[in-house]
């Protein structure tokens, strides 16, 4: 039972909107950064995707079609083929985002809020999310890390906190990152985030991943929450049912819902893995004590001090009343102290007491 974690950059622009690089130039830079996939999300157009197949072959990287709805009331990323055909941002008013989301889903795409708390008009037109959201279930994700050095931006910290508040309200929504890539030049001081999307390699691997094209499987992974966001090491979290001292049951992974049968004395054994071997040439974390946390709806559940190297921690913990769990890694990178990586959630449900 293995998961293939694909390194993705999910928010990019080209000369087809307001960026300076072509798709081919960006794809080459992305391949050098060891990404497996990039999503092209130009502002309000899809013309940059013409010739995509050639770029995929020449640059050896996969490209997901998308668009950034760059509206008066917010920026929204759409991912998936032909979204432009049936969904039109110009016809969607400040109170109609539900209609827009339905149109996007009908065309086979998914959608997420881009940089929800970036300063708005007139400094950055439409950048702050002001659409009224009727049904959160219609939104597939929220971009909580936007831009380079995303953990240092106050609008991203606010988005991350907002995501936590939504989770605590019982709203299950995926959190992703996006560089909002506009030019290919890289400077040494900035850190670049990666969203890893998990695809199951066999059909038992994951409850959500049941075939389809690579593109459809990526969209499903996002919707499900099989996603981990990082500036460097890949963090993953799993939870295994502990039926007795020696007997284990089902294993739950990112995005899954774990049901705890506490009346039977069952608990969950939690495993967090920090893989420091991924995209190794692209980032450095100098030797230091890092803080690896298991966080839940009630706050920090457990904390481990780890050295900067691949680590696996395991624990059986009291998870009474938790609604969700995620892993977070804190430390310093390029002289900047903060959140370095976080996983999406395993959602927790307490089984109803069974009368024996």
């Amino acid at each position, binding site marked *: 039972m293995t998961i293939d974690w694909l390194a993705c950059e999910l928010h990019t622009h080209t000369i087809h909107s307001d960026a300076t690089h072509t798709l081919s130039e960006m794809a080459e830079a992305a391949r050098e950064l060891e990404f497996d996939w990039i999503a092209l999300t130009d502002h309000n157009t899809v013309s940059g995707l013409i010739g995509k197949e050639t770029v995929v072959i020449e640059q050896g990287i996969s490209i997901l079609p998308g668009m950034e709805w760059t509206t008066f009331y917010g920026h929204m990323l759409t991912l998936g083929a032909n979204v432009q055909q049936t969904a039109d941002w110009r016809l969607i008013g400040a109170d109609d985002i539900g209609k827009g989301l339905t149109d996007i889903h009908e065309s086979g795409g998914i959608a997420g809020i881009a940089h929800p708390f970036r300063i708005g008009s*007139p400094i950055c037109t439409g950048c702050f999310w002001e659409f009224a959201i009727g049904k959160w279930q219609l939104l597939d994700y929220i971009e909580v890390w936007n831009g380079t050095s995303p953990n240092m931006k106050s609008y991203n910290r606010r988005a991350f906190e907002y995501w936590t508040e939504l989770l605590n309200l019982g709203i299950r929504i995926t959190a992703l990152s996006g560089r909002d890539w506009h030019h290919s030049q890289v400077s040494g001081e900035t850190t670049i985030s990666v969203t890893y999307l998990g695809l199951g390699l066999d059909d038992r691997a994951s409850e959500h991943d049941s075939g389809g094209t690579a593109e459809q499987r990526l969209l499903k992974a996002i919707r499900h929450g099989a996603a981990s966001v990082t500036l460097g090491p890949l963090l993953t979290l799993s939870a295994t049912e502990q039926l007795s001292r020696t007997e284990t049951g089902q294993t739950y992974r990112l995005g899954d819902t774990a049901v705890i049968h506490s009346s039977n004395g069952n608990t969950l054994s939690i495993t967090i893995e920090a893989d420091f071997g991924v995209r190794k040439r692209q980032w450095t974390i100098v030797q230091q004590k890092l803080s690896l946390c298991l966080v839940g709806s009630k706050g920090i559940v457990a904390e481990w001090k780890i050295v900067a190297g691949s680590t696996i921690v395991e624990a059986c913990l009291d998870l009474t009343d938790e609604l969700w769990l995620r892993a977070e890694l804190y430390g310093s990178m390029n002289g900047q102290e903060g959140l370095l990586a976080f996983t999406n959630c395993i959602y927790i449900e307490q089984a109803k007491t069974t009368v024996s």
Partner: protein
Amino acid sequence: MYKTLLDIRSTIIPADRHVHLVHRFALPQGISKLVITFAYSPKKLEDMTRINELVVSAVERYVEADSRMAAYGNPDYGLLHNLLTVSLDDPAGFRGAAHRPSPEQKIFLAESEATPGFLAGPLPSGLWELTISLHEIVTDTCQFHLQVQSEEERRAGV
């Protein structure tokens, strides 16, 4: 030979922001190239007093209290611009958009080539729509000039 299909000059004001101006025009048969010339002015707000007012109100509206001091001092925030974008639809649907800051744009579409942002392909006759989306107007007034011209197919031997 270019034929002018529409040529419109208009003045807009801040109250017009967030309006889509849809220009529906008829494209005749046998057109091989469509050229859109679009310009607006001014681009930049120069009035320092007005800039300060707008920055203060945006920071108060969008930034949390503990991050406001840093936001007021952000030099990028003082650069306030008008933003008008054009998008185009043929009788069957979307043909492209130019979501970029330049206040002077020349856009063309033809069978095999088009300006980045737009989809090359046949130019079917019928009702087309050229939309100007008024994302931001920070100056007291702003003038735009929109022109759409078509070029007929050259026939052999003519």
